[in-house]
């Protein structure tokens, strides 16, 4: 335990990849990467049997740093590639990491369909409420009224709740955390990975560079402080009124249900088909 | 090749405002001095991490190739930038460095001014080192009137920071004006070897 972090750093970060990584100073992506590594380690999963796929965005740069089977796909499509991988080799544990734009703007359809199918994938969505990589244009989770590179007059659209969409579309496991709550994240990610079926972990993260700067909370510390102040656990949230909850970030496990899993269902079909043959 | 093409490169680190300085210079040249001007800059991963590069090409006639071919003037705000971007230096070009940070200098045609120290000590805001340098560069190029430079600066900085930026500009010009260019060595490289 004492040297654990050193060991994790050594075991899971790619030595032939130059550090420090590309992310801005204080970017939450790095914190998520830390949690992901700790979760994987806690679950004692084989690196060879783990796949980490991403789309395009700052978040999309995560896989390159991790010594797993890694895949940096096209913008919004990580889940489609992941679907192919998982179906082709169900013994692999397949994770995806996506940005909010990646997962719910251009990739929104794949997201709801992956949830509906309930294939055993884990989707980590780093919701920094903005397009980081391309310079701060609004995303489907940018709050009403905020400023963005394409919303100089204040944003007029309303945000998706990523977690609610996932639940409605059919995901088995849905959780939310923030980068301030790294220890909770470790657990949520581990739970999501362990869950058979489609799991979503929405992680509220800071893009101070593109979001904070424009919205008067220009540094990572301020933004993390805000996550800390606004967060409320699922258990506590249950006791609050909708008004009291209005500005809060509910964190914890939001949904955890058991549903038939796609790969098992597929096996049933194969059995019928082989018999009919 | 048109002879009046004048090429300036700015090199520095990410947060130093190198690009803003180049943009202001381009504005001064293009809008207020009536030159043709092309301003370009490093973009992408390079721009994200440490180094940052910006270029301004000025001419009385239309500019074809928009980037620096051989620098007439190179402003280096850090050692890293100097090392990385020195390669296209023209024989008889002028190297201007921020002596606050730059220690190893590859050319004797150099002018050293402690822009950052001036900004910190004289203006009280390290952040305006770029404008101090801009003042010096503009003066050394001998292509700008101080009036036009001021206009350009004012058009690009937020209202509340006008004064401090003008102060910085003038500090830079002053520092440069104290340099005696005629003492600089001349290159012996012939024109033949110039890049096109």
């Amino acid at each position, binding site marked *: 335990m004492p040297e654990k972090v050193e060991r994790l750093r050594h075991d899971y970060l790619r030595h032939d990849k130059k550090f420090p990584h590309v992310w801005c100073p*204080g970017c939450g992506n790095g914190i998520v990467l830390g949690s992901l590594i700790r979760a994987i380690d806690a679950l004692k999963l084989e690196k060879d049997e783990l796949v980490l796929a991403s789309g395009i965005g700052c978040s999309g740069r995560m896989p390159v740093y991790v010594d797993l089977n890694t895949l940096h796909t096209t913008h919004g499509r990580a889940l489609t590639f992941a679907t192919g991988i998982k179906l082709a080799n169900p013994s692999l544990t397949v994770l995806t990491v996506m940005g909010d734009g990646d997962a719910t703007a251009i990739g929104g359809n794949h997201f709801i369909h992956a949830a509906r199918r309930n294939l055993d994938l884990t989707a980590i969505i780093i919701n920094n409420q903005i397009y980081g990589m391309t310079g701060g244009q609004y995303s489907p989770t940018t709050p009403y009224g905020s400023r963005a590179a394409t919303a100089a007059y204040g944003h007029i659209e309303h945000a998706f709740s990523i977690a609610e969409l996932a639940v409605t579309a059919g995901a088995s496991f849905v959780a939310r955390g923030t980068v301030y709550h790294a220890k909770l994240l470790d657990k949520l990610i581990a739970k999501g990975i362990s869950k058979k079926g489609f799991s979503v972990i929405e992680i509220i993260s800071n893009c101070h560079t593109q979001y904070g700067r424009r919205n008067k909370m220009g540094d*990572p510390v301020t933004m993390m402080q805000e996550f800390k102040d606004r967060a409320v656990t699922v258990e506590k949230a249950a006791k609050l009124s909708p008004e009291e909850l209005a500005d809060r970030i509910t964190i914890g496990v939001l949904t955890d249900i058991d549903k038939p899993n796609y790969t098992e269902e597929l096996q049933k079909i194969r059995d019928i088909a082989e018999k009919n043959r | 090749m048109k002879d009046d093409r004048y090429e300036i490169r700015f090199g520095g680190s990410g947060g130093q405002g190198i690009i803003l300085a180049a943009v202001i210079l381009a504005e001064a040249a293009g809008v207020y001095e009536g030159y043709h001007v092309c301003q370009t800059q490093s973009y992408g991963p390079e721009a994200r991490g440490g180094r940052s590069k910006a270029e301004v090409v000025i001419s009385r006639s239309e500019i074809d190739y928009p980037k620096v071919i051989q620098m007439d003037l190179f402003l280096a705000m850090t050692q890293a930038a100097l090392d990385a971007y020195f390669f296209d230096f023209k024989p008889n070009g002028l190297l201007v460095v921020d002596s606050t940070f730059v220690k190893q200098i590859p050319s004797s045609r150099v002018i050293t001014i402690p822009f950052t120290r001036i900004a910190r000590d004289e203006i009280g805001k390290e952040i305006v080192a770029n404008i101090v340098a801009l003042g010096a560069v503009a003066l050394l190029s001998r292509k700008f009137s101080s009036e036009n430079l001021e206009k350009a600066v004012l058009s690009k900085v937020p209202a509340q920071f006008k004064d401090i930026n003008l102060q910085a500009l003038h500090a830079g010009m002053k520092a440069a004006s104290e340099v005696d260019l005629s003492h600089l060595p001349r290159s012996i490289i012939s024109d033949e070897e110039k890049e096109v």
Partner: protein
Amino acid sequence: MTETESNNYWQKKQGLDKKGVKLFSQVVFYDWCKACGICIAFCPKKVYGRDEEGKPVLENPDDCIGCRFCELHCPDFAITIKERYPDRRRREND
């Protein structure tokens, strides 16, 4: 060495401070640190001060309670917190 001194010595060796609480060491990899300030701001014991560039410097290393907040939240894997164990070799030699 007075008794107290010697006590102190052993306590430190075993990673315990005077009051018998565990001690921790904080290692910062400055090449990886990007000076975001998170460790400095959120350390409950204000272990870190900030250097010229904004990077953490150890100010109160012995106050560290090993909560590992900084280690877990450093986005750049630039901090390691270790328990300060007694140096067994030297002890054996003693």
